[in-house]
């Protein structure tokens, strides 16, 4: 019997400790993040490509509008598309424009693609003793990912990089295991430039990778983590991930024949070139674009939102956030190596944001919002 009492006592103790820990944690930070006024919570999910900038935006926006909480879960563009189609989130995110057949499945009606920033998919690698950025052509990248180029000191790599001290080691390519917009951008580029790649692997969020070549990792985070952790690897990630981890990024040969770096200027060039071809729904791919210094594996990244918002309060919060993101938010882009939307495009995107409605009424109230901002 004594045993029983002791046991019950300890059970209670364990519970109390666990709950106590949780609660003390809760109250501690509550004053920091929540607001007394009616707070609105937005749930978003999708692309990992813009994860660094979205996390930054959400954090900064909280300072501007403490009553709007935005929870962005990066799980890959495919996941974002799935979630918005099934209406299990308030907004989705994808770098790869949705296909017509997927848009038709959307449960909540018309879906809008709202471009937020431009980013670059870079080739990053973990090679000891290689100091200067490697030069790569689409043919060589395709060769590596199709298993034709197996070693770092392959003749084709040496020819491009005569100075580099390339090791006699197996290349370990890393790709995305999940359905990924980054993969879509990457494979779209290689499919446009290398016919054999198009035939064998093809473009898409989950292309038909050549069996036995490379390993898969989840999200941009996973590919970057895998490359960083292991020698002789190469992977494709959004540039913010490579820069944040101090890993080199290759110079890529563009359409004009120049080896270009993925910097903001060169990424912006790809965006600017796209404006004249921009369709009304903004679904566009800008890989392998024209221009002397255009970085060829660039992409817009999109927020996916329903044109008719079911919940006016949430819809309003989303619209305000998007408006803030493409205007005030753009100043945070550059430090994270994303390129802000070209000026000519911002207006078009603003028009898109204005077209979002709830119960037939537009949600964006420009003057009021501006007045409020002036008052702050």
């Amino acid at each position, binding site marked *: 019997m004594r045993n029983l009492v002791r046991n019950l006592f300890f059970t209670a103790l364990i519970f109390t400790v666990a709950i106590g820990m949780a609660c003390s944690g809760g109250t501690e930070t509550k004053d920091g993040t929540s607001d007394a006024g009616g707070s609105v919570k937005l749930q978003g999910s999708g692309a990992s490509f813009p994860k660094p900038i979205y996390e930054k935006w959400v954090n900064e926006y909280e300072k501007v509008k403490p009553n709007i909480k935005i929870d962005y879960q990066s799980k890959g563009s495919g996941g974002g598309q799935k979630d918005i189609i099934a209406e299990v989130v308030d907004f989705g995110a994808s770098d790869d424009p949705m296909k017509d057949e997927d848009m038709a499945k959307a449960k909540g009606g018309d879906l809008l693609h709202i471009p937020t920033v431009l980013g670059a998919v870079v080739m990053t690698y973990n090679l000891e003793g290689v100091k200067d950025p490697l030069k790569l052509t689409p043919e060589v990248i395709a060769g590596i990912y199709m298993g034709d180029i197996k070693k770092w000191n392959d003749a084709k790599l040496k020819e491009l990089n005569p100075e580099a001290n390339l090791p006699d080691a197996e290349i370990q390519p890393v790709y995305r295991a999940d359905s990924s917009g980054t993969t879509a951008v990457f494979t779209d580029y290689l499919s446009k430039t290398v016919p054999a790649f198009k035939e064998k692997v*093809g473009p898409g969020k989950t292309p038909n990778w050549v069996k036995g070549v490379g390993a898969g*990792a989840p999200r941009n985070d996973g590919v970057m983590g895998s490359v960083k952790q292991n020698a002789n690897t190469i992977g494709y990630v959004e540039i913010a991930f490579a820069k944040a981890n101090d890993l080199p990024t290759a110079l890529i040969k563009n359409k004009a024949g120049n080896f270009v770096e993925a910097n903001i200027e060169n990424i912006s060039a790809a965006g600017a070139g796209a404006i004249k071809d921009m369709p009304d729904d903004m679904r566009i791919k800008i890989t392998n674009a024209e221009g002397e210094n255009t970085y060829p594996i660039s992409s817009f990244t999109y927020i996916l939102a329903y044109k008719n918002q079911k919940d006016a309060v949430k819809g309003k919060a989303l619209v305000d956030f998007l408006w803030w993101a493409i205007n005030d938010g753009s100043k945070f882009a550059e430090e994270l190596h994303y390129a802000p939307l070209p000026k000519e495009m911002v207006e078009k995107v603003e028009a898109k944001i204005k077209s979002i409605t709830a119960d037939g009424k537009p949600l964006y109230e420009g003057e009021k919002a501006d007045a409020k901002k002036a008052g702050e």
Partner: protein
Amino acid sequence: MAKTGTIGDTIFRTILIIFASTILLIVVAMIYMMAVNSMPTIRAFGISFLTGSDWKPASNIFGALPFIFGTVVSSLIALIIAVPISLGIAIFLVEQAPKKLATPISFMVELLAAIPSVVYGLWGIFVLAPFLVNYLGPFLQTYLGWLPLFEGSPKGTGMMLTGGIIMAIMVTPIITAVVRDVLEVVPTTQREAALALGATQWETTKIVLGNAASGIAGAIVLGLGRALGETMAVTMVIGNSPSISASLFDPAHTIASVLAANFPEATDEMYLSALIEMGLVLFLVTFIVNGLAKLLVAKVAKDSGTAKAT
């Protein structure tokens, strides 16, 4: 007996039956939901779903063989490593170690089973995988490189070997615990008889092992069941590549790991159906494997005349 008693009994019993039925209901609901949701691929591919080796979601071609291969091979690696070690530990604990030593060791081995899978994964990425790539891998490559099993170079980005080894660590405590329990129910008289006839301790142990054979088989099958369904740790170290390769240095993919990696994003009806069908296959296989394990272990308990079941 008072009448209230019988009414009370009926109510009490009914409530308990409802609780007990919940367990059956859960399993039936699981099978039903998965079967319904995997109908599209079952209809479209039939048995070729299990034998097809091409997995191309983009082209709506679904062959689950690479995942079945990865699941089976990684589980086999786990068993090849874990079974002898588990047997060794269990024999040591039951037959050889003094009780003072056996109790803490037994407990510590059990603690291995308490560590969450995701923590094994974390440790796998940052400790085990680098160790395999830098030490064990090159060693195997140098001395056994002529075997197709160790062709190529070991890959820290994920390989079958890492997945198998981490699974081995995870199933060891499970197999050990069952073998230990099985050995404990073998009557002491058998050991005494053997020793009295002049057998050494090891010879006695062999006799005990022989008598507990079906229970040991049960323990191994139970370990297999656990290995087949192991998810997080494996996903984190196996490389997630649906290919079939003889080399343990190449990345692989298991049914559980493809579900963890790709289930959240499957929009397409066929893709989703294909993933759920694999879930159904895994469910049925582990269900059968575990059932088999229970029968084997129960047999020892029955043969030994004790009711101790694990």
